[in-house]
């Protein structure tokens, strides 16, 4: 990623606070003093990562963002210092996934928003969409090893994944009912 390229910036580059809820964008640049940039990077806001906008607070500020599978809240002013581009709808496909993803589970965890699953995940490539090549030019390398593939692929099968995401006490039936209720909205 080039640090400054006016043409690229002019074309579709906005700051994060202007990205509407339930959309995602790729981080191009962090504007701000070193403490600020450092703090953001510590939380995973790295150039090349795709960040999703979950919602605005009831008083419109701050905003909740989703990056690398965690949720972080930023003030409007802070978000305005993050330059992003490539805005897309949907915030479900963010975050890296390692290893194989079982097919049954893949469809089930979509919440009905986006059908299908990016094929890049088969074969253990394991990078979230939108993640740039980085300085290594492609795949992670560990010292003394060649490029690494994930532990096998194709072992998936349909699996009842149940309600492991819900806290205990609700029960599987309860979780299913809740989920159905939410889906209807």
């Amino acid at each position: 990623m080039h640090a400054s390229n006016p043409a690229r910036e002019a074309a579709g580059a906005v700051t994060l606070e202007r990205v509407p809820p339930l959309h995602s964008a790729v981080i191009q640049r962090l504007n701000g003093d070193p403490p600020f940039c450092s703090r953001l990077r510590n939380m995973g806001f790295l150039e090349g990562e795709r960040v999703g906008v979950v919602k605005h607070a009831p008083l419109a500020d701050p905003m909740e963002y989703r990056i690398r599978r965690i949720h972080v809240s930023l003030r409007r002013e802070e978000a305005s210092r993050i330059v992003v581009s490539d805005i897309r709808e949907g915030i479900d496909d963010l975050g890296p996934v390692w290893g194989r993803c079982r097919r049954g589970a893949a469809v089930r965890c979509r919440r009905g928003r986006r059908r299908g699953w990016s094929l890049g995940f088969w074969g253990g490539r394991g990078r979230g969409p939108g993640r740039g090549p980085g300085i290594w030019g492609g795949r992670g390398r560990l010292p003394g090893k060649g490029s690494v593939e994930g532990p096998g692929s194709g072992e998936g099968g349909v699996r009842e994944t149940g309600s492991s995401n819900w806290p205990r006490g609700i029960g599987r039936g309860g979780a299913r009912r809740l989920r159905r209720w939410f889906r209807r909205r």
Partner: protein
Amino acid sequence: METPRKTIRVALAGNPNSGKTSVFNMLTGLHQQVGNWPGVTVERKAGHLEYAGYQIEFVDLPGTYSLTSYSIEERIARQYILEEQPDVIIDVVDAANLDGNLFLTTQLLEMGVDVIVDLNMWDEFERSDAQLDIRRFEELLGAPAVTTVAHRGQGRQELLQAVIRLVEDRSERHRHIPVTFGTRVEDVLVKLSRRLEESSSGELGVPSRYLAAKLLEGDAHIVEMLHNRLPKAKALLLEVEGLRAHVQQSTRLEASRVIAEGRYGFIDGLLRETLISAAFDRMEFSRQLDRVLTHRILGLPIFVGFMWLLFSATFTLGAHPTGWLEIMATFFGDCLRALLPSGFVADLLVEGIIGGVGSVAVFLPSIMILFLGISILEDSGYMARVAFIMDRVMHIFGLHGKSFIPMLMGFGCTVPAIMATRTLESQRDRVLTTLLLPNMSCAARLPVYVLFAGAFFGAHAGNVVMLMYLLGILTALGLGIIFSRTIFRHEAVSFVMELPPYRWPTARGLLGHMWERSWVYIKKMGGLILIASAVLWILGSVPHDPRVDLMEKQIARLEASSAPQEEIDSLIQEKSAVAIEYTVIGRLGKLVVPVIAPLGFDWRMGVSLVTGFVAKEVVVSSMGVLYHVGDEAGEESESLRKALQDPRFGITPLVAFAFMVFVLLYVPCIVAVVAIRREIGARWMWFDIGYQVSLAWVAAFVVYQGGRLLGLE
């Protein structure tokens, strides 16, 4: 090969939401001491344990996401590791969020210390159908890993055994620093490490590669450290600049970004080899719940509802135990009176100590319930949503959303509110919040408002009282803005905050947190409050006016000769008033008169204000005594109101208003002052006292003199 030492020093590090506190509690049980890191207001927890023949000492480092030099918490953690060189560091990691948490781990490993990775919240990890090849994980990281579920107390033995093993098998560990950054940066790092080793002739004490990486990142603190330690620092640092520029040119990125990407790249590679991710997004449930709880329209009312629930529970549930404690205190007092010969000592013990400590102790049940409520908010994860919702409002004060709950608690009692500021992560927020808290008019000041508003403002009394509260909030606002721009100007303010997944709190965790905080409150009461109450009582009873004895004899005579009751009563009241005038506190009140005269106050009000330093509730009863109504008078008492209105005493509505403003703004009670000192240090305590008294005086002055100028007298 060293023989195992008898004492092992262990430090706990980890991200703020990784459950580090639970791990600490699990390891140390009740053997903890809580204090502050020297010179700063960041909380420091230490504990100890005897295990397998060793004495293990634990230090809980501040929760951090990284170890840069940009925040004081990170600096503290880093300094401790570099200078104190603990034997083992337990890095508490949220197993379900490995890629975020390992960012800190990589830095710990770079520092060349012995790390045990504690994969905490392992139950969540397993429930989510993720799998981790732990052996390979340990191999690739070069550090042992132990799984725990700290909030259930699972994994304690394994963790302690891992610590022992690490210490005992020192020779067997291979310390290799696994994190690599890509060829271009690697070259630079190797070169820089070699230069560092040359310049320091091997005396660094820290892996040179770590220093090299930090220098490349532009870490100011490390630069300073090198200046102090290395003689040829300047030349070296120029070289560093050159190398940084080189990296920047060849990769076309800033060096700090390159390093960060390198770390994440390493983590990616590591996890790709060892982890099968959860198929499910663990934030799914939280997102759904948040659709309601932080809903754009519903979110606020629901939040208000929860706050209301919290506070009403505190008062209703706490009322019964409070009643019992009051009864117990009175009973205890009566027993003592019966046992001891009447006289100075008995009075001191009963009225001074039991009375003083008792009036604070009776709040204990309510405060414990309040702390329980806060623990529930924190452990469930809702606290972060509170901060999320309220940040916009708090931002106006120059504060963080997390300051909302302490400020809200300040309307009840300042002391637990000050203690609640421990939940704030940054020192700046804690200090600023604590300074602004006393302006949130606490419940003990209310009787003064009710009394004066009722006596002087008749039908508008209610509005006047509301005005007082509003004034307090506005003052906090103004001060917040001023302080943010001046005193705290240099400290970074950021709201970047993680919203953790909602979790079901465990009884064990809740009780632990609640007990931990309540215990600190109790210790405060036991110690200084006891002494302070005794001292203040003594000051209020000596010297003894000989006229009082004469009057008492007179009263006895009147009672014996069955004179009219009013005569006896008025003589009793006069006796009390005279007695107070003669004592140290009474004289203090008179001393203060020249200072408070421009505010329209007389010596009686001065005495009340001085006694109000002990506890604000005492202001009303002192006034009762001083205005000859008797110390049983409450703020609702008609006789006291009438007495105040008596033109002899020269109190007009204007003076009353000025007095209320003064009571609103001047120092909080001594318990709160002690709490301030404990939490943020003596220096800030004096600053707080200073600014509050000055502000109160100026405000009352403006009100009174301004009012006179405007002809409102």
